[in-house]
């Protein structure tokens, strides 16, 4: 059974479709990377999948049609980490993570256990009582993920979670997300870092101008032809024992021509 299923999903803003006839599935234990140039529609697609954005087409979440699910049921089926890492008030990290328990109607002990587990999984024990607004970028990103973990959902969607993080934090983030996938949850992350995406994701979905161009394992998706056509770059492709390696090296010929004009 798929955790998330999209069939012919289209989102229009005015006359133009921002997301155009997207069909995709996410099953248990997968880590899926959502890639595409700026403006490809990745954020809009994620928001539509969760019901935050009106869309045409069929969307099922956890096996049930999105329209049949109430807000609380959706919150229990999927957790979302938006791109804007907004924290309006100086609440403690512990209080922030506890926000993820909101949709549950569980006992205080169950809540505490889930919060403790999430804080432990994200290595935030030392920051428990600190105001979340005083954390560094990487620490805050981890706290927001811990909130999503505390929400304890089978599916997790994260919009550019590694943006702005230093290499150590970015790697640590990707490892933790993949560990979640190994534990049986499913994770969908959108990102721009091709190297990280290729190395850590089981599957990649590449979007251009609202459409899915290709959907498959990293080696099949990130071919030199694709990289030139979609991103306009050349890259050095390789692999080591841990996975594929992609290092962007320069602009593709047509882009070079454009630059010279």
């Amino acid at each position: 059974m798929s955790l998330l299923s999209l069939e012919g999903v289209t989102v229009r803003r005015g006359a133009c479709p921002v997301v155009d006839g997207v069909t995709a599935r996410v099953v248990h234990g997968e880590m899926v990377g959502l890639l595409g140039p700026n403006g490809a529609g990745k954020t809009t697609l994620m928001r539509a999948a969760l019901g935050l954005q009106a869309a045409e087409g069929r969307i099922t979440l956890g096996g049930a049609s999105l329209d049949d699910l109430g807000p609380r049921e959706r919150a229990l089926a999927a957790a979302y980490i938006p791109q804007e890492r907004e924290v309006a008030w100086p609440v403690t990290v512990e209080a922030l993570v506890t926000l993820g328990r909101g949709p549950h109607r569980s006992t205080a002990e169950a809540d505490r256990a889930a919060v403790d587990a999430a804080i432990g999984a994200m290595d935030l024990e030392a920051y428990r009582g600190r105001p979340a607004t005083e954390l560094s970028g990487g620490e805050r990103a981890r706290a927001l993920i811990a909130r999503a973990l505390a929400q304890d959902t089978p599916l997790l969607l994260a919009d550019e979670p590694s943006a702005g993080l230093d290499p150590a934090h970015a790697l640590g983030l990707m490892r933790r997300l993949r560990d979640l996938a190994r534990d049986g949850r499913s994770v969908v992350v959108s990102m721009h870092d091709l190297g990280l995406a290729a190395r850590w994701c089981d599957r990649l979905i590449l979007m251009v101008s609202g459409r899915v161009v290709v959907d498959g394992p990293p080696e099949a998706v990130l071919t030199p032809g694709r990289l030139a056509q979609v991103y306009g770059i050349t890259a050095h492709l390789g692999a080591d024992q841990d996975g594929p390696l992609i290092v962007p090296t320069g602009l593709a010929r047509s882009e070079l021509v454009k630059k010279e004009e």
Partner: protein
Amino acid sequence: MSRFAGTLAGLATGTAVLFCLSLLTGPAGTPAGAGLAALISGGDGALGIVMREIRLPRALLALLIGAGLGLSGAALQGYLRNPLAEPGLLGVSGTAALGAVLALYTGLSAVFPLALPLMALAGAFLAVLLVQALAGSGGGSITLILAGIAVSSLAGALTALALNLSPNPFAASEIVFWLLGSLADRSMPQLWLAGPFILAGMALLFTLGRALDALTLGEDAAASMGVTLARTRMLAVIGTALAVGAGVAVAGAIGFVGLVVPHVLRPLVGGIPSRLLPASALGGAVLLLAADLAVRVIAPDRDLKLGVLTALVGAPFFLWLVWRHRRDLA
């Protein structure tokens, strides 16, 4: 948790103490014991009348209106995710005053008494909608304040116009009451008129706790955690209009309570919006009861308006806020 419980207990105690002090303060100059005895025993003598008809409604209204202002300030700040939001600054109080003035000076409320709070409510409702439409929750602080200034300037001008057009010679000078507020010589009928609306508004605002907590992380995150944004918005708007509007109808526009109280109390509740709601309600009651006491003690012979005192505290506070956050606010 214990700090929160302690804060609430302290505020509740303060409210009770100030409420009693308010009952015991007044030009009649009676000793405390006799006054309280007359209130409880309900005698018909002069002292009983003074306690029941003059001091009691005044103290109760100070408590209710203060609580409503504090609570709506906390709710607005939580909903708009902006620490500068409050009913006075956003023009909600000013527009409510306009509604009340239109009801009173045209004689409408003499014929149909409920017209007074209802029109004040309508004014408040319009203002919240207008400011939200102009600045929204995506708008920054500058946009929000500008929208509030625009709305309250317009409301103030129309209020002054309405008062100047009244044939009654006293009307024009009464603008001071409507723009600054006063609880002097309020009566029980006014309490019955405004009280139910204020309580209803407060009840609506208290249901926003969980939604406001979730909104700490932004609208998308909150929606993904099960919050229905449209419903939250409706509750915030209607609740604020009820809680603030009815109070303005009987006591004029009292500003800054909703700004100062949540700010001062936020560190004591760890910044958590759902905890700030009850704390601000109690804090608002404390502030307004204290201000109303001060008005009677500092200048008993002159009709010192409540809004003067809250502005003397609130406006420098606001200036300090702007100074401290000037980099963040733009």
